[in-house]
């Protein structure tokens, strides 16, 4: 009889869950992996993702079913008979009770089949796939800009203080105050219509032309990044001020360490933990921001897809995108946790 070893993953799974690793050839490697702090973080996140996905999918299904109208209304418009509406509802399965519709969707979703749009007939996975690139480009681009400009502004403000610092603060605060859709429209007028530097609308796939891809992203990324820049700059400044006032920095200065080393090896690394936290929040916020920015710049992304699907009562698409966005949030949180473990050794030990 092959003995089995219980490995309690206290840090990796919710209370009371035990994973049983057998005594096969992979068992030692699995045991090592189970004890690894990074694996614990990943395991915990992945296990928590399951109930989260269930809750999100069920609640989005319920919320959409509570709104007036449905896909039959959208398809037929106002000039149709009651019989036509009823017939189409039957054909689309919209006459079934909500829980039955949800369970039907769930059964298929568990096999990887997210269904097809009742409006376009396109499979949901294909619809998401087609629109993923613009949204991801937008989010990744905005995150990069938020980090580069936000950290830069935050550092500048913390280091310089005075008028220049206050100016940097003011710029960051402006980012909070200006809505992305408004600044987007203004950017179009200035940089697309008047200066003709960038296209006013649309998305060019990177495979078609990397340069045109970049051009198509400049204005939407600029509009979407403002909030992230403001958040990162404020957090960087606050964190840097705290760290720079701490004892170990005073000691470093007293020991004559070079300023660059103090700033980037000691101060910025310590200050980056709360900044990373903010980045996680910003990344999730960007998901929502894409809805407005994609709309203003007419980008064929997931934000526009889910808004249109909601307005049209296209349940399968709303469900699919909600699940996808939830997965993105889970991945972002996982990345943040991993970043913590890299930045802060105490997390690894814990």
């Amino acid at each position: 009889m092959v003995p089995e070893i219980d490995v309690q993953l206290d840090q990796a799974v919710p209370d009371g869950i035990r994973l049983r690793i057998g005594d096969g050839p992979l068992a030692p490697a699995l045991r090592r992996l189970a004890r690894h702090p990074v694996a614990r973080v990943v395991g915990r996140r992945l296990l928590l993702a399951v109930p989260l996905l269930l809750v999100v999918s069920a609640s989005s299904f319920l919320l959409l079913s509570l709104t007036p109208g449905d896909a039959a209304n959208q398809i037929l418009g106002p000039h149709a008979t009651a019989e036509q509406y009823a017939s189409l509802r039957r054909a689309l399965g919209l006459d079934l009770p909500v829980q039955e519709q949800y369970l039907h969707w769930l059964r298929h979703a568990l096999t990887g089949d997210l269904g097809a749009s009742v409006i376009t007939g396109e499979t949901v996975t294909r619809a998401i796939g087609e629109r993923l690139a613009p949204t991801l480009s937008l989010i990744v681009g905005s995150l990069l800009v938020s980090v580069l400009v936000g950290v830069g502004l935050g550092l500048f403000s913390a280091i310089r203080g005075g008028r220049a610092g206050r100016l940097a603060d003011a710029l960051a605060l402006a980012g909070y105050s200006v809505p992305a859709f408004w600044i987007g429209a203004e950017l179009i007028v200035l940089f697309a219509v008047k200066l003709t530097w960038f296209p006013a609308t649309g998305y060019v796939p990177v495979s078609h032309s990397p340069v045109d891809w970049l051009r198509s992203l400049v204005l939407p990324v600029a509009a979407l990044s403002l909030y992230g820049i403001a958040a990162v700059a404020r957090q960087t400044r606050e964190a840097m001020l705290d760290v720079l006032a701490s004892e170990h920095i005073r000691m470093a200065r007293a020991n004559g360490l070079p300023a660059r080393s103090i700033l980037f090896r000691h101060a910025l690394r310590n200050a980056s933990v709360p900044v990373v936290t903010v980045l996680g929040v910003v990344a999730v916020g960007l998901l929502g921001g894409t809805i407005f920015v994609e709309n203003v710049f007419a980008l064929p992304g997931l934000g526009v897809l889910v808004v249109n699907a909601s307005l049209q009562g296209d349940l399968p698409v709303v469900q699919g995108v909600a699940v996808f966005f939830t997965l993105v949030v889970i991945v972002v949180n996982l990345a943040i946790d991993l970043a913590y473990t890299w930045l802060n050794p105490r997390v690894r030990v814990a």
Partner: protein
Amino acid sequence: MRWISTPTSSRTTGFDDPTGSLSQGKEFGVRRLLHLVAVAAAVSGLCFAATSSSAGSKPELRFASATAVTNLNPAIDIDTYVLALAYASLIHIRPDGSFAPALATSWRYVGSGNTTFELTLRKDARFSDGTPVDAQAVKKWLIYFSGEKGAFAKNIPFKTIQTVGRWKIVLHLSRAEPNLPFLLSEPFESGFIGSPRALSKPEQLKTHTFGAGPYMVDPSQTVPGDHYTFVPNPYYYDQSAIRFSKVTYRTIAQPTTLLAAVQTGQLDAGYGDLSTVAKAEAAGLKVVSAPIGWAGLLLLNRGPETEDGQANPLSKLPVRQALNYAVDRKTISKSLIGKYGSPTDEAPTLDGWNPEFSNLYAYDPAKAKQLLAAAGYPDGFTLKVLSMTFFGTLGDPLVQTIAKYFSAVGVKLDITPNASLNDWLPKYLGPDYQATGFTEGPVISAYTTYNNWYGPKAYVKHHGWSDPVLDKLYVDGARSKNPATNAKKMMARLVTQADEVIVSTSNSFWYVSKHLGGLAYSAASGYPYPTEWYPK
């Protein structure tokens, strides 16, 4: 978004170390910031320097509207000016509303009574899958079309469809229909014929095209609901009419973004709206416009009782007349629509327009109060009203303005706004509301108007009543050789009965690049069809 707070008790206000040993930090920070700016500027410059160009002897056509085309099946979708690219119609409607041969070279009513219609097909037309467009194919498609669930499916009351030889088809109708050439042309899609091969698997009609038009959709360059790319149909019977190497239709929901795209040359044409037309004109764009619709208040419940069992004021003619006298159409039309609308109390139709009835109810609040008092409502009443918020200027602002005028004669409007068609439609079809703000377009025939709203088999019997006089006018007119006579009488009847509170006509707008010609339309054609456009 939440802030991640950090302790602030020991912070300094800047990196101003008392020893001064870190002064290099200032220089470094500035340098780094300048470096970042330089990199960003370089990227911008690189992007600016790059331009895209297109190859090919024929140019591309790019146009857009706010409408998200989501289904390419003409038996379901109603975006006729997009589908016309791929689906040739049996009869073509020219921009001025006259008819021209398309898949059918000739057509006529047979006998009297407008119940039999004969079409002779051209012999050289093929669908984009290569199948010939013959009488059997047309018959098969029309049977499919009329059995589908689309909004236009029941417009033509087919009884039987007969083929005579390979190129002739005879439509036998269950009731008289005097406007078949119109119904078989582009605006109603009934004349868009698809290949019989597609009907073996109709689901594919959603994402692929099977028409006999000049173009066909290229699914590999298409994102449903966002943009559709059409490429030339090698089987189109008039290759000289294919003037573009590629046609792209895009959905741009934001009117200002659409305008910017036309201004910057990203689009050759765009379907504009009231909110941007003044800017488009100021920017020097060519604006093509036609009076294709009307706006006002539809009175949904004219039955004797309201839903809660109370006497329904709208069942009384003097009350409806009072509501019509209560609104100052000239002021409303001028303030909301400007030069792109005209005040009217008659819904414009293609065949029933009566200029003498378009201002029957001149603004007269005193008379309105008098009529209300005479009808037993000296203190007015309250109406539950829907508003189509999603129509912009002709949504909430229109209903709120009407409400202000009604309020002056004692009639209060309890307004429910609706953000989307999906939100509005169930309430509109349900019994709870007595009126709705409404914008209709394109303009249609008086007979189709009757069939949609007033006849015994109307799509929406929102009035909860019947008018035997109107019914008789319809029946007699539909059978006559000169249906326009009764069309005018029908519309006059609707006005004198104060069936609605129509306020103004309204135009639609297209913004057109100077490089594009042929974009023209009228109330009769409803839309400009891109099959007519050409590069300049």
